[in-house]
């Protein structure tokens, strides 16, 4: 019970520390003893199959999620992957989530509508096609004429020169000239070029990024209680953390690999726990954190994020038979034969296969003979 209560406190990991939660710290004497006894009781016993229990505790409710699609219609929100697909995404350790998203929190000085929107417009990625009215190839001059849209420019807080500078920075093979306050003329630097080159340049230029942080496709500024918060679709944690005014402690992304890269593996572990737990909670499933913690620990214990499955945790088990029992039987057996692997029969599945007692629960106990 205590472990559960403390886990519900906002995202802290105090479950892991042995000190009692603040609520119980002023306990003394008999009550303290009782509390500690209960705490000890809540701990798993020697030989308990924590892995299987964790797997069942997560997968059983997961089978129910599929049957209950949860929708919130008519709300202003970014559509992110939820429910079972997201859960699979987390445990399969997908390099890039289907809908990468960031929650950007702001520092106290920046915590107002104006600054939040300003920051938001700085973050959102804008490419040329977003501010362009048309682009046309001038056949007589053999140049590309880019006409910008006045309103769009204003909306994105841009002007011709900034667009020109951004373009010439991103494409070194062409020269960019400002013709008037809405038109840019682009000309390849090469001495010889034809119509095809111009057309290729045109398509490439459209996607060129003129402003904002790469990868951030959509942005939503909303008030979360007293606070202003920016939610994005698309993620680039490193660049966002460099911005002034962003609260570096709380800003986070749902891309686990990105977090592992920017903040380290421990942070990635915490993110796995948080994302998995939130996904389950969102669907009305109340799974104990400790099951997810175990999974997250296993996924990150090697220092890199390993998926649960064939190419990850299950594929890197020590026992040949255990691996062969899971998937790709032939692959593992041939590999074992080739390398001369040895199975010490120390884990569960191997012993089920040969018909021994599994070293779990009652199977852990051995009789010791007196000499």
């Amino acid at each position, binding site marked *: 019970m205590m472990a559960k209560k403390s886990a519900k406190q906002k995202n802290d990991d105090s479950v892991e520390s042995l000190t009692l939660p603040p609520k119980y710290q002023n306990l003394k004497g008999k009550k303290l003893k009782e509390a500690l006894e209960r705490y000890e009781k809540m701990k798993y016993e020697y030989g308990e*199959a924590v892995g299987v229990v964790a797997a069942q505790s997560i997968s059983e409710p997961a089978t129910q999620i599929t049957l209950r699609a949860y929708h919130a219609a008519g709300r202003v929100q970014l559509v992110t992957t939820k429910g079972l697909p997201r859960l699979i995404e987390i445990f399969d350790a997908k390099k890039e989530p289907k809908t990468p998203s960031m929650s950007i929190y702001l520092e106290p000085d920046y915590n107002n509508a104006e600054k939040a929107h300003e920051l938001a417009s700085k973050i959102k990625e804008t490419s040329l096609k977003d501010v362009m009215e048309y682009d046309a190839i001038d056949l007589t001059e053999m140049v590309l004429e880019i006409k910008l849209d006045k309103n769009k420019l204003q909306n994105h807080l841009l002007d011709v020169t900034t667009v020109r500078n951004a373009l010439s920075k991103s494409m070194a093979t062409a020269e960019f000239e400002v013709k008037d306050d809405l038109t840019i003329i682009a000309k390849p630097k090469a001495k010889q070029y034809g119509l095809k080159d111009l057309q290729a340049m045109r398509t490439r230029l459209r996607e060129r990024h003129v402003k904002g942080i790469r990868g951030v496709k959509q942005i939503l500024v909303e008030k979360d209680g007293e606070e202003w918060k920016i939610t994005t679709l698309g993620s680039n944690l490193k660049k966002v953390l460099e911005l002034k005014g962003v609260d570096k402690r709380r800003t986070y992304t749902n891309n686990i690999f990105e977090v592992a890269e920017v903040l380290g593996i421990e942070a990635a572990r915490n993110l796995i726990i948080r994302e998995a737990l939130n996904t389950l909670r969102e669907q009305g499933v109340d799974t104990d954190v400790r099951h997810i913690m175990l999974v997250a620990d296993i996924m990150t214990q090697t220092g890199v994020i390993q998926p649960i499955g064939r190419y990850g945790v299950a594929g890197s088990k020590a026992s040949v038979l255990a691996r062969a029992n899971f998937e790709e039987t032939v692959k593992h057996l041939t590999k074992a034969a080739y390398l001369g692997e040895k199975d010490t029969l120390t884990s569960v599945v191997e012993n089920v296969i040969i018909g021994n007692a599994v070293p779990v629960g009652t199977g852990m106990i051995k009789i010791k003979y007196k000499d």
Partner: protein
Amino acid sequence: MGFVFINGNLVGKVKDLEALRAEIIENRRKGRLPKHLNVYLIEDRDELHINIDGGRVLRPLIVVKNGKPLLTPELKEKLIKGEVTWKELFDKGILEYLDADEEDNAYIAVNEEEVTEEHTHLELDPATILGIEASLLPFPEMNRGDRLNYGSRMVVQASGIYLKNYLIRDDTAAQLLVYPELPMAETQTLEATGLATHPSGQNLVIAVLSYEGYNIEDALIVNKASLERGMGRSYFMRTYITEARKYWGGQEDIIAIPTSDIRGLRPEKAYSKLSEEGIINVEEYADSDDVLVAKISPIRFIGIQEELRIGISNKRDNSVVVRRGEEGVVEKVILTENENGEKIIKVTVREYKIPEIGDKFATRHGQKGVIGMIVPEEDMPFTKDGIKPDIIINPHAIPSRMTVGQLLEIVAGKAGALMGQRIDATAFKGDEKEIREMLKKAGFRDDGREILYDGKTGKKLEAQILIGIGYYQRLYHLVSHKMHARSRGKVTLLTKQPTEGRSKEGGLRFGEMEKDCLIAYGAAMTLKERFSSDKYKFYVCNSCGVIAYENKNKGRVECPVCKGSDVKEVEMSYAFKLLLDELLSMMIYPKIEVK
């Protein structure tokens, strides 16, 4: 400007598609074009599709012109009298067939009252918006849609008289209801499709009541006396087929009772029912595993020399036996031959099936259940008139499923039985008021409820109970064909693990996920016991790590590699030993180290 397609092939361009469409329809109605030709205008793509190929389902509809259906009351009158034929109505363009595509362009009114200027067609009858299967169900408009789906799916499984020539047929399995009845609440479709002559259920007195809890979870409580009077009895017929083949090399199957030198001989008793020719007689009773046709076949593989020398014949018993768990009387024996002149023998065994606990019944409203208890008639609740229900269903079956049609059917059935007439329960035709009137007239409450008395104590039940007549179907899922258990028994040759499946007297698989549950519980010893169905003792060579064998000649255990006898006895699953052997055959040397 648009494109015109015939049967999906582009044939040309036309300026005014709408005009072309109108012209084609006009000509079709006048009889200048085939009745089954349909045009379909896709406006947003500017395409006109003309279809006259096969495979399209067509539906007859009444043509509406200027807000008036062309089938006038006078014409209807004539049609009933036979002065006008159905075909003539089509020739005159009063009725026409539409396919699924042309329906998209039509605006079809369901009721005659709702026809407006805009409508192009009118349904022949509101009930025709349902398909044949759904329109067989009574009061479908009262039920939730999914219940109709379940209901019509179960009508298919009901036993009745599936075909009238069943006596000369040789279906592998067939079930026939002994005393089928037409439903009290019938639909017009029943008559129209000819299913009225193939009924598949019986009208039973149903009470909606709880009884000792034996009808929870959709179980049914059945009156024992009703069963004894023949309720729900059926014949189950199974035809066994065998051929006396001729094989390559002059060998052939022989239909004859095997002699004692034949391999795989069955016990004497199994052949006792056979006639001299080796085929069972008609009207002879046959139990499970009794031979119906004795057949002697050549063995599949010629064995080792030794066996041949001893003098065991190279013939094996390949008789046709009654399936395990089934029995019955031989209905008929058919002797014939196939195109190669080989003898074919078909034996049909008939079994009389009296409903028992576990047999499945269903109404036409998707309300299915199995018999949960059979109650002596004297213990059944009764009304003041002494009516006792045949079946008691649980009230919990109704609210969540919202099968109001079933309640109405029970009430309608009761009214019909009292007034001596069947009730029309066709979609949108049923008249609740009329049914209530009928009940009132017969001196009953108009909602079908009555005061019931407890059969055991004779005390009045507190609440009034809905009791009436509903149509119940016996579905072909019989417990006697499904019940299965095993403790010890057959094992497969290859793995020494228990066989799979009921027909092979197999075990019930303790699968991967079940295994996980025992692990999670920490019950290692239980788990070991579960998975020890194929445990086996082996000797493993201490130096080579391979499985050793017992050399009976020398009276010792020998390693096949080093021929030494430094071995240790181990116990493991036979399937694992098999895996090791297969690895060996794949040139992989799995070495066992015994501590």
